[in-house]
């Protein structure tokens, strides 16, 4: 009887277009949107080299020394080109390039000194950004050479120009220690949260399972209540059949996202287990919501949507900073929020070299889901109806 129920539950969910939409279509639609919007944001904001700058230096001396200087620093320490220079014919032309956002900054001369002009910070950018900082450090380095050279001239007879080579120390004594092989792209958090959302949306089918097993919610539920098959067998079959299909949906969505360029890492088996347990947690949450009260189905659906979306929102689905805010203001909440646990587990998999955090989070998700299933079953069992 279990397999009979299992088979029909498979058919039911496969024909449930809404659920397939939430668990598959919605995830891939939103994932595509995320990839288009900020797929390259990390490399654009954090890794970009080859900064576009305009140069207009009227002073011949400054111009000569600047050209020598720029030849020295135009390649950054990692061997990539640092600056992409456009020479302007006037300061107005250079400022025009800056205004049109064609260049990040303008190097110009004033009072025999090299100076830099950058654009005012945009509102959504939070002050000067790192690229402004890098350009400013070019001017500072230039200025530093002459200040130090002046000071040295007071003590010795070293030719200041020979200092240009001396001053461009490459920082060999500052060794980089790499503590993890994983990615450092914080924007990937959005994709982790997206998968977490897909998992929690499994709660909608969890709700449907209670609808079709409770006599006061559907005629099918009433029919099942008087049938000989035990509620345990039919509910287990329904939960497992739903889990199987939703799990396949989530995995397919992840495959799609990987194809369009999202990097979830290479720990495939651990991720597969995480998505399975995440989906199970979502399903059991829906099962619990469906069992808790005698509200009508629409109200319960509203609660499931609201709870899932709120948990995802607090885990950083809409605004990535939210998770950090929650970590600071209410750390316990993140440890109980299934969406935050799922996205944190993805993070732990990709960043930490050992699996302790992964195992801890998986265990937390399992405990949460077991609590949901047991509570849902205890509330929903042995219900009798005088009339329906």
């Amino acid at each position, binding site marked *: 009887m279990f397999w009979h129920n299992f088979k029909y539950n498979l058919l039911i969910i496969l024909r449930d277009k809404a659920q397939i939409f939430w668990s598959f279509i919605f995830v891939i639609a939103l994932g595509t949107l995320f990839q*288009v919007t900020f797929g390259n944001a990390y490399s654009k904001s954090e890794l970009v080299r080859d900064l576009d700058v305009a140069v207009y230096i009227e002073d011949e001396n400054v111009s000569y020394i600047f050209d020598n200087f720029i030849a020295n620093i135009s390649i950054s320490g990692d061997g990539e080109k640092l600056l992409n220079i456009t020479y302007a014919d006037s300061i107005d032309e250079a400022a025009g390039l800056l205004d049109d956002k064609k260049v990040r900054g303008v190097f110009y001369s004033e009072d025999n000194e090299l100076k830099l002009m950058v654009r005012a910070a945009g509102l*959504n950018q939070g002050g000067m950004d790192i690229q402004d900082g890098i350009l400013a450090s070019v001017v500072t380095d230039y200025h530093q050479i002459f200040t*130090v050279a002046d000071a040295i001239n007071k003590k*010795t007879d070293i030719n200041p120009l020979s200092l240009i080579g001396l001053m461009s120390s490459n920082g060999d*004594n500052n060794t980089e220690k790499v503590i993890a092989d994983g990615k450092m792209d*914080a924007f990937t958090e959005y994709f982790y949260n997206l998968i977490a959302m897909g998992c929690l949306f499994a709660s909608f089918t969890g709700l449907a399972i209670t609808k079709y097993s409770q006599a006061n919610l559907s005629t099918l539920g009433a029919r099942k209540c008087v049938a000989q098959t035990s509620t345990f067998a039919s509910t287990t079959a329904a939960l497992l059949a739903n889990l199987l299909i939703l799990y396949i949906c989530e995995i397919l969505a992840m495959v799609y996202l990987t194809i369009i360029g999202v990097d979830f890492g290479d720990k495939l088996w651990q991720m597969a287990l995480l998505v399975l347990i995440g989906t199970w947690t979502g399903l059991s949450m829906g099962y619990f919501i469906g069992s808790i009260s005698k509200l009508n189905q629409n109200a319960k659906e509203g609660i499931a949507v609201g709870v899932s979306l709120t948990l995802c929102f607090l885990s950083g689905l809409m605004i990535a900073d939210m998770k950090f805010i929650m970590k600071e203001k209410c750390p316990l909440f993140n440890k109980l929020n299934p969406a935050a646990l799922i996205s944190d587990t993805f993070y732990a998999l990709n960043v*930490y070299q050992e699996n302790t955090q992964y195992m801890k989070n998986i265990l937390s998700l399992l405990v949460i889901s077991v609590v949901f299933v047991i509570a849902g079953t205890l509330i929903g069992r042995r219900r009798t109806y005088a009339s329906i």
Partner: protein
Amino acid sequence: MQVYKTFLRIFKKQIGSCMIYFCIFLGLMIGFSKMGGKGTDKYETYSCKLAIFDRDNSEASRMLTDYLSQIHEMVDVPDDEKVIQNNLYFQELDYVLYIENGYENSGRLTNIKRPGSNTGMYVDNQIASYESSMSALIDAGYDMDSAYDITLEAMSDEGLVKVYGNSVEKKPEYYYFFLYLPYVIIMMLFDGLGAVLIAFNRQNVSDRVNVSPVPIRKRNIQLAAGVVTLGVGTWLLFMILGYIMYGAVLINAKTIYLILNSLVFTLISVGIVNIVGSFNLSTQNIAMIANIVGLGFSFLGGVFVPMSIFSEGLKKISMIIPTYWYVMANDGIMLDENIGNIMQYIGIEVLFAAAFMVISMLISKRKKLARAE
């Protein structure tokens, strides 16, 4: 007023789920109220988030620490790789410097940073410049204190960088209020107004109303009054919330335009919901469309993520999304942009609203004609 009253009665049933979005918005505002980014028309040296572990504790190491702490924000983190890793990932920390034992003689340093990052390169470069300047001056015969003073002066960027264009002193808290408003308004209107429109457009209900003694014109006027009540009511609710949260600060010459901008965006949302609501859809289908539209508009329009990270191509695509113009107008108002530009952005939004209204009217007219045939 029968239709109008029924309209509001159906909406009453939806209030609970609308409140979910209202609470999300409240949470957002409280979370973001303490965050105010720095925008300035005066250049300030770019500051990274740095942690320094001084294992040498010598005069030279203290000088290096002192120099870096003058430029950067020092973050207090334990010397634990996992904690450092987390902080680097979430950009709560950009660079960790270990001043190794014996630094005064060997100059040995170790750093942890996001591999290949600009912030890492920036701090690396500052340390290298500091080191080379200090060693050149000491080699020339200066003592450490004098060398340090000259290095500080040499590495100062004071007066070397000029800022071009307008900026604001600090993003006021209400900036976030108006920034995130489109998402909540779209979602709440889909949830509340969408549900009512679906109820009225359900085939049998609509047929029943059509054969009732209420004239069609009267029915349409009452329906339109209902739509306006809900749209303007939702907008008013947020304006009152804004006033409660920010008080009199919210009433100034700038915010009048922000308020106008949000009202126009509410009309756009009403237009979109009207179009979707003209079809005979289930509540679930409406929820699907609401999420795609709400999140899609918010991400692509620059509400949830700044447009500065968009590629040029994506920015062009975003122009067909009304939230893009909403955010442009908002930013323009905050940055004291030319009033003509701001009105142009708001004008484009008005065109969007008008287009959506016309489309929704055309759809319902076509549907009526199709049914008559």
